[in-house]
C-alpha cells in the first residue's frame, strides 16, 4: 500500500491523494489524465478494471479503477471531471487500456461525455435516436415509444472527435464496413449468442473478417433504477444481471453495503453464502459446458450438463426458495437458516458430481471431433486478455492469474484451502480447449471448497439485525467478487441517503464480448460459435 502511494505521488507530481478513501485515489484535471494513465501503465498497471461515469451535479466526471496483472492486489482509483455540461469532452484512454473502448462508449451513452480520439463514439445500449443522456441528474426528456423501425439506428457510421492544432474539436465520421462486404447479422435472435446479442459479422465465404457486437437489446437500466431504490430493494436486480451467477452478484452487493455500513455478518452466514456461490459457479460451468457442446452440435452432452445442474437447483429451491435465483443473501446475512439435512445433501452432491465429471471427459473431452474443433482455435494471449480485461476462466486459461477469491479474499474464502486453476502457459496459450477444460477443472476445485466449508459449518446465527432503513455514510465504495465469468465489481457512490447516488456494476461479460473480434478474425463461422461458447458470456450481464 505504501509503495502504491509513493508511486502515485511520483506519477502525479504535485497532486495529493484524496483522504478517507477505500483505495488510493488521485483527483486529476481532464488534461492530466492521459499522462498519468500512461505513466501508470508503464509502471505495470495494465488492467483497467472499471470505468464509471458520475454526474456530480455541477460537473460530469469519470472514475477509473486500475489494477495490475503482476502486482495483483494493487488497486488505484483515478478521478476526473469537467464542469462543461453543455458539451463535455474528456480524453480517451482506450489506446492505453483497450478495455476502455466499450466503457467510454457507455459513459457517452449515459452521460453524453465525448472522448477525444476515441474511434467509435456510437451509443452502446440506447438507440441511436434516443434523446438526452439518462444518467444525468437533470435528465427529464420524454422518449416516445417508437412506432417504426425504419432508419432508427445507424449502425454503420462511427462518429469520432479529434483536436486540431489549435485545440479545436474536429468531428469525423468513419464507416464500419466497406461497400461490398458480405455482412451477416448473427443475432439478436440466434441460438448460439446465449441471449439477445447482435453480432454484425463480415464474412469472406466461411471466413470471419470482422465482428461488431451491438449491445442493448436487454438493457433494463438497472443502474438507473437503483438510484431510486433503497439498498434492500436493489438486491433482486443484482441477481438478474448475470443470471447464471445470480447469487454471487447478490453476495457482492450485500458485501459492499455491509462493509460500507459496518455491519458484521455472522460466520455461519458467510460460510453458507460461499457454499452457495460455489454451487452457483458449478451450475454455471455445467451450463457453460453443456452449451458449448450444444453449440458444437452435441445435444446429448447439453442434456447431461442440465441433468446434474438440476441437483444444484434442487438444493437452491430447498434452502433459498428460488431455483435459478435463490434470493438467499440479504444485507446482514441470509433470509433464513439452511434446512436440516443441508450438509448431507450437499456432501452427496459433491461425491456424485466428482463421478459425473469423469463421465463428461469420456463423453466429450476425449471425443476426437470435439477436441479437433477446440484445439488451436481462438488464441487469446495473456497480454491481449489483460488489455481487454477478459477476466475469469477465460483470462486464467491464457495464464493470467486473476482470481478475485485469491487476490482480495472475501467472506469465507479466507478460511479455505484451494488453488487457483491456471492453464500452464508453456504448453498451452489460451485456445478454445483451454477455456473449455479450465471450467471442468474449476468445478472440481469448487467441490473441494464446498466440502471444506460444509463439514465445518459454524453454529452462530444466520443473520444480524440491521436497521429497517439502511443508510451508507457519504463516500464511494467498491467491492470485487469472482463470479463464474470473472471479475464482478459493485461501485456505490453514496451521499448519505437511503438510496445510492450512483451504482455501477462492473460486468465481466462486456469485456468478454469485446474479445470476440480479435479472437475470431480469420477463423471460420463454426469457430466463431465455438469461441463465443468458450468465452461463456451472458448478455443481461453485459447490457444491465
Amino acid at each position: 500500500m505504501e509503495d502504491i502511494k509513493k508511486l502515485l505521488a511520483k506519477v502525479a507530481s504535485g497532486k495529493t491523494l484524496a483522504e478517507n478513501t477505500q483505495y488510493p485515489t488521485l483527483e486529476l484535471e481532464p488534461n492530466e489524465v492521459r499522462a498519468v494513465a500512461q505513466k501508470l501503465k508503464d509502471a505495470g498497471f495494465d488492467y483497467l478494471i472499471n470505468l464509471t461515469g458520475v454526474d456530480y451535479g455541477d460537473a460530469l466526471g469519470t472514475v477509473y479503477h486500475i489494477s495490475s496483472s503482476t502486482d495483483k492486489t494493487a488497486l488505484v482509483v483515478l478521478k476526473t471531471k469537467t464542469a462543461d455540461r453543455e458539451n463535455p469532452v474528456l480524453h480517451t484512454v482506450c489506446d492505453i487500456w483497450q478495455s476502455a473502448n466499450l466503457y467510454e462508449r457507455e459513459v457517452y451513452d449515459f452521460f453524453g461525455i465525448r472522448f477525444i480520439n476515441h474511434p467509435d463514439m456510437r451509443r452502446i445500449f440506447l438507440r441511436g435516436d434516443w434523446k438526452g443522456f439518462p444518467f444525468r441528474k437533470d435528465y427529464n426528456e420524454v422518449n416516445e415509444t417508437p412506432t417504426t423501425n425504419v432508419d432508427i439506428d445507424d449502425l454503420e457510421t462511427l462518429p469520432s472527435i479529434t483536436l486540431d492544432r489549435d485545440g479545436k474539436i474536429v468531428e469525423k465520421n468513419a464507416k464500419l464496413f466497406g461497400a461490398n462486404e458480405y455482412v451477416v447479422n448473427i443475432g439478436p435472435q440466434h441460438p448460439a449468442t446465449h441471449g439477445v446479442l447482435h453480432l454484425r459479422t463480415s464474412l469472406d465465404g466461411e471466413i470471419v473478417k470482422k465482428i461488431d457486437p451491438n449491445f442493448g437489446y436487454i438493457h433494463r437500466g438497472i443502474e438507473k433504477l437503483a438510484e431510486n431504490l433503497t439498498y434492500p430493494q436493489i438486491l433482486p436486480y443484482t441477481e438478474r444481471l448475470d443470471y447464471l451467477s445470480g447469487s454471487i452478484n447478490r453476495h457482492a452487493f450485500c458485501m459492499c453495503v455491509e462493509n460500507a455500513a459496518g455491519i458484521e455478518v455472522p460466520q455461519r452466514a458467510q460460510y453458507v453464502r460461499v457454499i452457495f456461490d460455489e454451487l452457483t459457479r458449478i451450475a454455471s460451468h455445467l451450463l457453460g459446458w453443456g452449451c458449448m457442446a450444444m453449440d458444437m452440435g452435441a445435444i446429448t452432452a447439453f442434456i447431461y450438463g442440465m441433468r446434474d445442474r438440476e441437483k444444484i437447483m434442487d438444493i437452491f429451491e430447498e434452502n433459498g426458495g428460488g431455483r435459478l435465483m435463490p434470493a438467499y443473501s440479504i444485507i446482514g446475512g441470509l433470509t433464513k437458516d439452511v434446512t436440516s439435512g443441508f450438509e448431507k445433501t450437499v456432501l452427496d452432491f459433491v461425491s456424485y458430481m466428482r463421478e459425473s465429471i469423469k463421465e463428461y471427459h469420456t463423453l466429450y473431452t476425449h471425443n476426437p471431433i470435439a477436441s479437433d474443433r477446440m484445439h488451436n482455435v481462438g488464441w487469446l494471449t495473456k497480454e491481449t486478455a489483460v488489455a481487454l480485461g477478459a477476466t475469469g476462466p477465460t483470462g486464467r486459461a491464457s495464464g493470467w492469474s486473476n482470481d478475485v477469491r485469491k487476490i482480495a479474499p472475501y467472506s469465507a474464502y479466507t478460511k479455505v484451502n484451494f488453488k487457483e486453476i491456471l492453464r500452464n502457459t508453456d504448453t498451452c496459450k489460451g485456445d478454445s480447449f483451454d477455456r473449455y477444460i479450465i471450467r471442468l477443472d474449476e468445478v472440481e476445485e469448487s467441490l473441494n471448497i464446498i466440502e471444506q466449508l460444509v463439514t465445518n459449518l459454524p453454529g452462530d446465527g444466520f443473520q444480524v439485525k440491521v436497521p429497517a432503513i439502511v443508510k451508507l455514510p457519504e463516500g464511494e465504495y467498491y467491492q470485487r467478487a469472482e463470479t463464474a465469468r470473472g471479475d464482478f465489481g459493485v461501485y456505490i457512490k453514496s451521499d448519505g441517503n437511503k438510496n445510492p447516488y450512483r451504482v455501477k456494476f462492473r460486468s465481466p461479460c462486456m469485456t468478454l464480448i469485446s474479445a470476440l473480434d480479435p479472437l475470431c478474425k480469420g477463423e471460420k463461422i463454426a469457430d466463431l460459435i465455438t469461441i463465443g461458447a468458450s468465452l461463456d458470456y451472458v448478455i443481461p450481464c453485459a447490457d444491465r
Partner: protein
Amino acid sequence: MLQLSDIITWIHEFLSANIPAEWAVKLIEYVLVGLGFLTLYALIALFLIIFERKICAYFQCRLGPNRVGPWGIFQVIADMVKILLKEIIPLKHNDKLLYYAAPFIVIMGSLLTFGGLQFAKGVHGVDFNIGVFYLLAVSSISIIGVMLAGWSSNNKYSLIGAMRSGAQVISFELSACLSMMAMVILCGSMNLSDMMESQGRLWFIFQAPIPAFIGMVIYLIAAHAETNRGPFDLPEAESELTAGYHVEYSGITFGFFYVGEYCNLFINAAIGALVFLGGWQPLHFPGCEGFNAVMDYIPSCVWFFGKTLLLIFLSLWVRWSFPRLRIDQLLHLEWKIMLPFSLFNILLMAVLVANGWVF
C-alpha cells in the same frame, strides 16, 4: 407360408381375370403401386420420427414423448396434423417458382429411389439391369432441391447452408459410389435382383469379409453425410446457421424437407442393407442346412426391415453422440481419408475376385 409376393401375384391374377383389356390392368397396377409407395413413404417417415425421438431420449436420460397414446406413439400423428395446418409464410423478394419447387424436388428424389429398392422377395417397383447405378443417381437429385431452397430463399444463412450442402454431398457421393462399386465387382452385376440372388448363399459381407467391411464402413459414413444429419449437419447447423437452407420455410413446405430427411435416412440404410447385408435374404451359411432352414421361416420383409432398422440405429447412435464437424475437417475426412481408402478397396476387391479368393 404367406409371402408379400404371393399377395401381389394374387392381385395381378384377380385384375387380369376380371378386366379384359391388358392396358387397363397395367394402368390400375401402376396406380396401385404408386399409391402403395406414397403410403409406405409417409408411414416410414412417421415411424422413423417417433423411433428417433424415443431412441435419442434414451441416449439423453429422458423419456421422450409419452403423452399422446401408449408410449407417445401417436405424438407424430399430432405433429403431422399440426404441420399440415400451419401457415406457409410467403416471402418478399425471393424467387417464388424455385422457392416452392425446391421441397418437391427433395421429395421427388427420395420417392424415385423407392422404386428401385427391393423390400421383400419379389416386391419391388422396377428391376433394372443397372439397379445400383439408378439408386445412386436418383438419390442425389434431392441435393438440387437443397441448393435451390438455399438460393431462392434470398437469405444469407440459407445461402451459406446451401453452399456447404453442395460441397458436402458432392464430396461424399464419391465415396458412397466407389464403395458400392467394390460390391458390384464382387457380384459381377449391377442388377439388384442378381445381387440378391448371389447373396442367397452367403451375404456379401461374409463373401469377402475384409474389403466388404471396409466398403460398408465407408458407405455408412458417406451415406450418413449425404443425409445432412449430425455430425454432418453443416448445411443446417442449427447453432451456426439457425436452420441453414430451410430457414425460411414454414408449414408443410418445411414438412417436406423434414420428411425427405427421414426417408433419405431410410433409403441409405436400405441400400446398405441390400448391397452389404443381403437385403431380404435370410442369414445363410453354406453347409449348415438345419440353420438355414430355420432362418427361412422368418419372412423376407422382416429380414429387410430388420437390417435396415439396425443400420438406422447405428446412424442415430452416431447422430446423438458426436459434435458437428467443421467444413475443413469434413472435406479433409472425405478427400484425404475416405476417398483413398475406397479406391484402395476397389483394387483389393478386384484382386481378390480375380484370383477367386472369396468365399
